[in-house]
């Protein structure tokens, strides 16, 4: 066996050979690596430790820099670790820390090796072992090696001691019970004069405090001392980190540390320390006005610095300040805005965020203007970053900051024309959303939509298809505001629409349908203006027979009148004549004819619908144009009935529907949703009105427009009965709105739009009344700001959207066993006395003056001690006390408590008694320390 091993070791490639070979290989890197791996697999089986270790080193190299799996070498690594030679150990430790993890099977075998090296006299061996432990320790390793670590914490070799301190972090994390053993020694190291050790301890505490700051409050005096005395910037930074976690928990502590921090800020020359001071002040001491002023002054220096790093950090700090002190941003406005054109993308984005923080309803339009101009000039990524932040800021809280919606809608249109714009989907959503919610903006919306639609160039940009679909929808839905429907029709049917994806094409066709119906309706109404009301009243009974329809009847009459008013302008700008109608009909046939063969179901169906409608009406129109209103009066009436019917179907208001609306509909009795739908036909047959001809047109669109499912039909049926009374109520409410309670929503109602609110009101009642916010008329007028020339239009809000689930993430106070253990050690001694001391306090009138000091720590303790096993007794008694904990966590807690209790029973008996023995000594020593310091 020794023969081959000798050959191996003589001819084995060293790591250097491997690296050289890799650089000079001609067979391709991967091939070379797999060849080397083969060699290594052989060599690593060698009994010669030198050969083995070299193989292991090569493998580590390939794993580290060429990402090869080395899990197969776990056991050989342990073998090499057992070598007495330092160089072998080092290789083994390196390999182990690269490849071992919690589920490595041989992990448990390493304990003794580690222990041996931890006890070694050679500091470098100890260091290797500690380093390895800090990387791979799991519960078992941490538990088994706690005694060794404990010993090393007071090693007189600084080189070892600081590493032992650092490894404690991992040991605590993995095995919280080790806190009981090691914590005291760790704290003792806080008083070490050696900056290296001190730096390590403070580092450990800053990590610990990050996870659960409250447990370390009692150590504040020690940290304070370090903060004041330290000459080492590294240590100061870490202590500041600790204080930034502690200060928010204890206002008196915050007051106390402000001065030293400000002194540091004034005197230090190190930018890193200065920045840490600034960050501490702006995050944790932001109540202290003068400190914040000083910090902002320093931030300004950062902002004006040449170094992009400082500038970036300055902007970051400013963003933190902005949450509470917006003035700081306004003071530095010029720099911030200038930074928008900085070469550094980080700085640009940071300044963009700051600019957005400054936005309010007074300046939103100016700022957006500036930003859009920047967007046009900047690179695609940043351009979209800008657009995205404008969109999200303006739409926040239902367009809270937008007052002038006309402006905003045209801005949206403008934004979508920016060459790099990729925010089409968001713009699409907002266009539709605003259209639904804000009635006053619809004319402008239609204008913007028209501008987008008639531009054939936009159809080629796939990022804009979403915007175009929204534009098409808006122009169809609100066609009555259009100045020139004919033009709109042409835009919707232009040949380049073939570039659109089928779903959007379907929307185009549907919108064209709406526009067409509108044109025909306008034309006919004008023709028959002799007695329009008569014709309206004449509406065939067949139409209203559709159950869902009836309830809207009166409303549509009103709407009809409404539209008629609008017609005045419409016809003035572009008179709809018979010829133009005929032209349109021809155009529809020409454009949509080919689509009847479309493979997309949606497109196909919409095209078929529209063409069917054209087929139905066209002959009559042609006829009537020849016979001039005389002959076929009867037939005309029928056509106009159809048109009227279609028009009414489309003119119904679409309201926003909350996403949870469906859930609010209670299931009516006798409706079994999971039933086989085979019976549906029968039921529908019953419902269907005799004039199935007209219904076949009315029903599908009607349903679609309502966005309601079948089950809602029934609801509306129910509502119908109560309709009369509710409408009476509504009328009364409208008239005497002042005396009605406002519905509580911050709704702004424009008073000068009575039909609007009335209209919505009606719609609401007919709809699921719970869904839409009840609009109150006059009650909120005083809220409107007189500043704006134009009153902010109504924004319809839904219950659900209004009370958005508050995205407040409760910082999960980690009540885990680690902090529990730490509290145990720090508070443990005080835990039992408080019950007695409390009674003491209430009994003795002497200490009353001091009571105030004590109440705070105590109430704090009660929160602190909750998850703590040794505080159980007090917890049980303090049931009446206010609990900060939330109930759902209780179970968890209790379970944990029980767990800990059990653990304690088995293992901690000795400890408990020791603790109790220490109590009398510690209580007087420690309790006064905190309050004295804090006051």
């Amino acid at each position, binding site marked *: 066996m*020794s023969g081959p091993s000798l050959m191996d070791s003589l001819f084995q490639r060293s790591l*250097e050979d491997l690296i050289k070979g890799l650089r000079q290989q001609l067979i391709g890197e991967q091939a070379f690596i797999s060849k080397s791996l083969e060699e290594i697999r052989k060599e690593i089986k060698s009994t010669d430790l030198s050969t083995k270790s070299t193989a292991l080193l090569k493998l580590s190299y390939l794993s580290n820099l060429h990402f090869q799996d080395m899990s197969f070498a776990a056991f050989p690594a342990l073998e090499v670790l057992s070598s007495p030679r330092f160089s072998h150990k080092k290789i083994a430790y390196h390999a182990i820390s690269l490849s071992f993890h919690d589920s490595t099977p041989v992990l448990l075998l390493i304990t003794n090796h580690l222990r041996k090296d931890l006890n070694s006299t050679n500091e470098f061996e100890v260091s290797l072992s500690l380093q390895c432990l800090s990387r791979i320790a799991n519960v078992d390793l941490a538990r088994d090696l706690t005694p060794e670590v404990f010993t090393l914490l007071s090693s007189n070799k600084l080189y070892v001691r600081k590493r032992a301190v650092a490894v404690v*972090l991992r040991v605590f994390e993995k095995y919280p019970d080790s806190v009981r053993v090691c914590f005291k020694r760790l704290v003792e190291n806080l008083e070490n004069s050696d900056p290296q050790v001190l730096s390590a301890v403070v580092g450990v505490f800053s990590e610990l405090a990050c996870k659960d700051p409250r447990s370390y409050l009692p150590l504040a005096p020690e940290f304070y001392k370090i903060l004041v005395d330290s000459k080492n910037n590294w240590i100061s930074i870490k202590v500041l980190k600790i204080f930034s976690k502690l200060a928010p928990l204890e206002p008196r502590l915050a007051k106390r540390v402000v001065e030293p921090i400000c002194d540091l800020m004034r005197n230090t020359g190190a930018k890193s320390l200065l920045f840490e001071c600034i960050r501490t002040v702006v995050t944790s001491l932001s109540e202290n006005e003068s400190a914040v002023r000083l910090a902002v002054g320093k931030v300004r220096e950062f902002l004006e610095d040449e170094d992009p790093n400082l500038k970036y950090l300055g902007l970051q700090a400013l963003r933190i300040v902005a949450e509470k002190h917006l003035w700081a941003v306004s003071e530095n406005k010029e720099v911030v805005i200038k930074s928008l054109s900085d070469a550094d993308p980080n700085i640009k984005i940071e300044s963009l965020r700051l600019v957005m923080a400054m936005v309010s309803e007074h300046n939103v339009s100016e700022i957006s203007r500036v930003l859009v101009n920047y967007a046009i000039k900047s690179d695609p990524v940043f351009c979209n970053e800008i657009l995205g932040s404008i969109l999200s800021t303006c739409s926040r809280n239902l367009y809270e900051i937008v007052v002038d919606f006309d402006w905003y809608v045209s801005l949206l249109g403008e934004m979508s024309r920016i060459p790099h714009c990729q925010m089409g989907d968001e713009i699409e959503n907002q266009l539709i959303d605003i259209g639904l919610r804000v009635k006053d903006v619809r004319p402008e919306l239609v204008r913007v939509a028209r501008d987008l639609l008639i531009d054939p160039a936009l159809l080629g940009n796939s990022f804009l298809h979403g915007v175009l679909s929204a534009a098409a929808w808006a122009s169809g839905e609100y066609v009555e505001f259009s100045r020139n429907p004919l033009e709109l029709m042409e835009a919707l049917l232009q040949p380049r629409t073939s570039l659109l994806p089928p779903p959007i094409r379907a929307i185009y066709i549907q919108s064209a349908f709406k526009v067409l119906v509108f044109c025909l309706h306008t034309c006919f109404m004008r023709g028959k203006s002799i007695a329009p009301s008569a014709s309206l009243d004449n509406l065939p009974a067949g139409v209203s027979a559709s159950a869902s329809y009836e309830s809207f009847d009166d409303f549509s009459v009103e709407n009809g009148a409404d539209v008629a008013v609008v017609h005045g302008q419409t016809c003035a700008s572009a008179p709809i004549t018979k010829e133009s109608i005929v032209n349109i009909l021809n155009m529809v046939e020409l454009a949509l004819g080919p689509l009847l063969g479309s493979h997309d179901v949606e497109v196909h169906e919409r095209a078929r619908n529209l063409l069917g409608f054209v087929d139905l009406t066209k002959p009559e129109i042609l006829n009537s144009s020849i016979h001039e209103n005389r002959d076929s009066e009867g037939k005309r009436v029928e056509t106009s009935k159809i048109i009227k019917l279609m028009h009414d179907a489309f003119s119904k208001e679409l309201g926003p529907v909350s996403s949870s609306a469906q859930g609010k509909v209670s299931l009516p009795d006798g409706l079994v949703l999971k039933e086989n739908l085979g019976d549906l036909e029968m039921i529908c047959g019953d419902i269907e009105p005799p004039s199935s001809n007209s219904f076949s047109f009315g029903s599908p669109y009607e349903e679609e427009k309502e966005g309601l499912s079948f089950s809602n039909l029934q609801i509306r049926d129910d509502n119908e009965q109560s309709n009369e009374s509710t409408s009476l109520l509504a009328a009364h409410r409208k008239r005497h709105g002042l005396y009605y309670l406002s519905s509580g929503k911050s709704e702004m109602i424009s008073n000068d739009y009575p039909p609007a609110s009335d209209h919505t009101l009606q719609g609401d009642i007919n709809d699921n009344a719970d869904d839409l916010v009840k609009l109150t008329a006059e009650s909120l007028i005083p809220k409107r700001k007189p500043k704006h020339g134009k009153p902010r239009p109504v924004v319809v809000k839904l219950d659900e959207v209004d009370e958005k689930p508050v995205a407040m993430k409760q910082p999960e106070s980690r009540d885990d066993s680690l902090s529990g253990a730490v509290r145990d050690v720090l508070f443990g001694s005080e835990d039992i006395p408080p019950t007695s001391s409390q009674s003491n306090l209430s009994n003795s009138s002497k200490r009353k003056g001091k009571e105030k000091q004590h109440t705070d720590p105590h109430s704090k303790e009660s929160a602190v001690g909750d998850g703590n096993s040794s505080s159980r007794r007090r917890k049980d008694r303090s049931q009446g006390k206010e609990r900060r904990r939330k109930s759902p966590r209780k179970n968890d807690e209790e379970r944990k408590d029980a767990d800990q209790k059990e653990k304690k029973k088995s293992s901690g008996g000795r400890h408990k008694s020791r603790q109790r023995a220490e109590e009398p000594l510690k209580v007087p020593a420690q309790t006064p320390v905190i309050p004295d310091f804090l006051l």
Partner: protein
Amino acid sequence: MIKAVMVMNTQGKTRLAKFYEYLPVEKQQELLRGVFAVLCSRAENVSNFIDAESIFGPDSRLVYKHFATLYFVFVFDSSENELAVLDLIQVFVETLDRCFKNVCELDVVFNYSKVHTILDEMIFGGQVVETSSSEIMKAVEEISKLEAASNAITLIPKSASGWRSR
């Protein structure tokens, strides 16, 4: 806490990778690629920060420095100070420079173990334990001596025994 230290060249080849939490090699490779993709797109003379949260998840920051053909990248969380870590990179590079006399990429390539030793002297389990480059040098030299000694002592007997057994 420092999460990772990486050194890579301007071609994207990894020259050093150290993760202070266990990660499977595939994940390491992915992260390194992600970092390089951002690094190589950045201009000269811009700030030394990168938005790391998109690559490393929440609460992570990244600073880097560009020396000649190498990027030195440190990834850490909110308990470190950005500027201090930048200084730390400086210390690391200075130490390499002292150790190899005008360090260049090739030194890092061929001295895999030594570079790791230097880094391990500075950063221990994600925590900075030494910031003075002369202290680091002292320790590294000690360790090298120890390694050489442990090899030298046993080299002769081993080969001798090898010959004898033949």
